């Protein structure tokens, strides 16, 4: 177990290096520079800016410089936030996305697993069709539709949540993270419900379940004790990377509710050609995904004896 953890964490280094290298050259190959503006500055000014940020040097030299800097955990200055380093941008934006993502994750899991289990044990009855149609609808309704609906209802009609910003409102009791988290959570809940149903049905058809039934085990115990353990395996393997995705922020949800999370930093950095910020966020996401994949593998091996070594 320890060996697995250590080796996976060591794999991080080449993974991040490869991701950074590919992203570095890709980002530099997009046309358009970071310093163009509606009113073009003089060529001398553009040149000085390039010199200031080292963009006048040959590409390989910029690359070596960047990689050595990353090795010291310094992700460089941001061009967009002129008084912040990329480390600072991530440090202030990640907690926002983390809070929203975690709450969304809890919502997704609670709603999704419940709906999936109910559907599985009521296979081909109304209590299967109903939650599954809702789940299908949930997958089909994009977050940029769900978000504004929630914002209008809870923010404008009920006036219990802010519709924009990461600051509290005296008259609105709900924290600004609630609506974004529900928007994201419901979307993922739909996936989880379908996965849970599929996994549960697979297990419920297996011999050991039939044996258990024949032995007269309570139906509830079959579901909770025997079936869910195996039935949730596909969900767990889905959850690792999804959790990483959730806490790294969603551009759309962050724009709709105007919260200062990491998802929009990533997208905007590309639009702004803010190379250090592009690379910094990509590297950060790579680390998150590796770590949460590892966690989900560990969880899976704890739940499924077949994957244990």
């Amino acid at each position, binding site marked *: 177990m320890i060996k697995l953890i250590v080796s996976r964490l060591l794999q991080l280094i080449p993974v991040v290096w490869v991701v950074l290298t590919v992203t570095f050259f890709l980002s530099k190959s997009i046309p358009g520079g970071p310093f163009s503006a509606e009113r073009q500055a003089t060529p001398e000014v553009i040149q000085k800016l390039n010199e200031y940020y080292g963009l006048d040097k040959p590409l390989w030299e910029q690359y070596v410089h960047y990689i050595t800097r990353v090795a010291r955990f310094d992700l460089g200055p941001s061009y967009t936030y002129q008084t912040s380093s990329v480390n600072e941008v991530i440090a202030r934006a990640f*907690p926002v996305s983390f809070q929203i993502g975690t709450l969304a994750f809890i919502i997704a899991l609670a709603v999704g697993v419940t709906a999936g289990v109910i559907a599985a044990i009521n296979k081909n009855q109304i209590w299967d069709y109903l939650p599954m149609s809702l789940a299908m609808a949930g997958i089909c309704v994009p977050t940029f539709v769900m978000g504004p609906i929630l914002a209008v209802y809870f923010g404008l009609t009920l006036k219990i949540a802010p519709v*924009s910003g990461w600051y509290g409102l005296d008259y609105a009791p709900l924290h600004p993270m609630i609506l974004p988290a529900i928007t994201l959570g419901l979307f993922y809940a739909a996936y989880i419900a379908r996965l849970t149903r599929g996994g549960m049905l697979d297990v419920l058809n297996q011999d050991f379940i039939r044996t258990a039934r024949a032995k007269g085990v309570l139906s509830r115990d079959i579901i909770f004790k025997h079936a869910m353990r195996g039935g949730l395996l596909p969900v767990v393997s889905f959850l690792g990377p999804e959790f990483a995705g959730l806490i790294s922020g969603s551009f759309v949800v962050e*724009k709709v509710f105007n919260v200062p999370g990491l998802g929009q930093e990533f997208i905007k950095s590309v639009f702004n050609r803010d190379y250090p910020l592009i690379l910094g966020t990509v590297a950060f996401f790579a680390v998150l995904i590796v770590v949460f994949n590892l966690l989900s593998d560990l969880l899976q091996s704890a739940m499924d004896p077949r994957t244990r070594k």
Partner: protein
Amino acid sequence: MLKPIRVLAGYHRVCLGSQESGRSKLMNVRPILYVVCAAALLLVLTAKMNAAGSAGLEEANRRKILLLTEGPEPRTLDPQIAQGVPEHHIIMALMEGLLENDPDDQSKQLPGLADRWEHNDDYSVWNFHLRDNAKWSNGDLVTTEDFIFSYKRMLTVTLAAPYIDALYILKGARDYAEGKIADFNQVGVKALDDRNLRFELIGSTPYFLSALLHTAWYPVHRETILKFGKIDERDTKWTRPGSYVGTGPFILKTWKENDVIELIRNPLYWDATNVKLNGINFYTIENYDTEERAFRAGQLHKTEEVALDKIPYYRREHPELIRIDPYEGVYFYRINVRRKPLDNPKVRLALNLAVDRESIVKNVMRAKQKPATGYTPPGMGDYGPLDVIHYDPERARRLLAEAGYPNGKGFPKFNILMNSNQAHRTIAEAIQQMWKQDLNIDVGIENQEWRVFQDSMNRLHYDVARYGWIADFMDPITFLSMWRTGDGNNNTGWSNPKYDQLLDQSAQTADPQKRLAILRQAEQLWLSEPAGIPIYWYTRCYLLDPSVKNWNALALDNHNYKFIDLEENGTPKLSLAH
């Protein structure tokens, strides 16, 4: 730890219709539940408390805090490095220059840090006297040395100030910036003593007072700049709350990136008694729909824009909330004159005459924009907009035939390039159709992401490309200088020595009326062989809560925040639920 498990267990129980407590039977799903609980715990630990925050419009009115948005997050609050409109608008609350904006008329100025000034006969030498109570927000007296230091910083090319060329009207400024002279004393700005400042300009500049309102001419606090870095060091931390030293009516209290910048009243401001507001919050909101919801929820006093498709609704249902003000800007298409057949002035004129601007304004834009009959928009004092270009399909067809394409026959297909945006596309489609109908020529529409688009424009990799130009100050030169040969914003390849000569001549003409006449002649010339297609003159369309007082229609949208007031018991806004 146990409580959430119970809750979840109960949840399943209810759903499954069971009556028994099943905690002991949940052993096998425990790992998941543990993860969920751990996550919830982490969430609680990292959740920040609701900050004091906003309390809605009525409370904001009572406390006299104006809630605004400038759209995107400002990149910097350093007046000398700032480039975009949001930056300028926020800096105008934090800083003041020699003069300040008039609250009613953008072509007038009020005394700012300077209380009086004079100029010589040909408007090339200006003396300003600093008022004796002009203070920095840390209590230091504002002196002429601060201005000398600031202009030296601005003209130090390693600072890479985007508006460095705004200062090139100072004698010797360009040479200093380009390293041709090393001694800053040779640049045309002198401290006669610690209250009197003299500017020597390269030519006759009757619009100098208007130019001085731009943030590029604001002073910065020498000691603060040098405390945080060298004179030419960008991006130092002097612009952070607690460090920022300004001259304006407000000071920087907090800056939460992508969320809010809070300003509070500056008690040391020379005119502090006349400042009506206690603070201004600038929220970062990039999405128009979110902005509109925030306005309807009472989180904003004013929006930055109104989405195109919502303009008719607000004009019809809530005329008391929507404001449409003239805005000193022109929406136009650039034409790449290096490409055939667009190198032929007749073709370019024909394309101009076959655009029905009235129809675009009335049917597409719908916010009282004016059809552009010239390039420079109205509102520039005595200059007056030129009334030259009108929809004339007959003449357009004739010109096209003269150019060798009767009824559009043999006319090569070209593309209208634009940055990805629905409004731009709608206009382009309308024009595409007009050209097809009136000239029988086929054009394509191509959109590119903003930075790629700008790159294409700078490299002249386009046929026709949409653009917009907003005045920096109230003089036609702010529009006309871009068409000079080789100007960084020309980007069409168009060049006419006669045009350059007229612009030079205008700079040597002392008489303001004669000067405007020369500029008019230059614009006339440009319109006779246009390197572009002016389409409409801008308006600014936004939502404004009726509790905001003195928010006047201003052609440059540069508001002097010290005159803005909030009515405490303002008319409560109508319910805006659709």
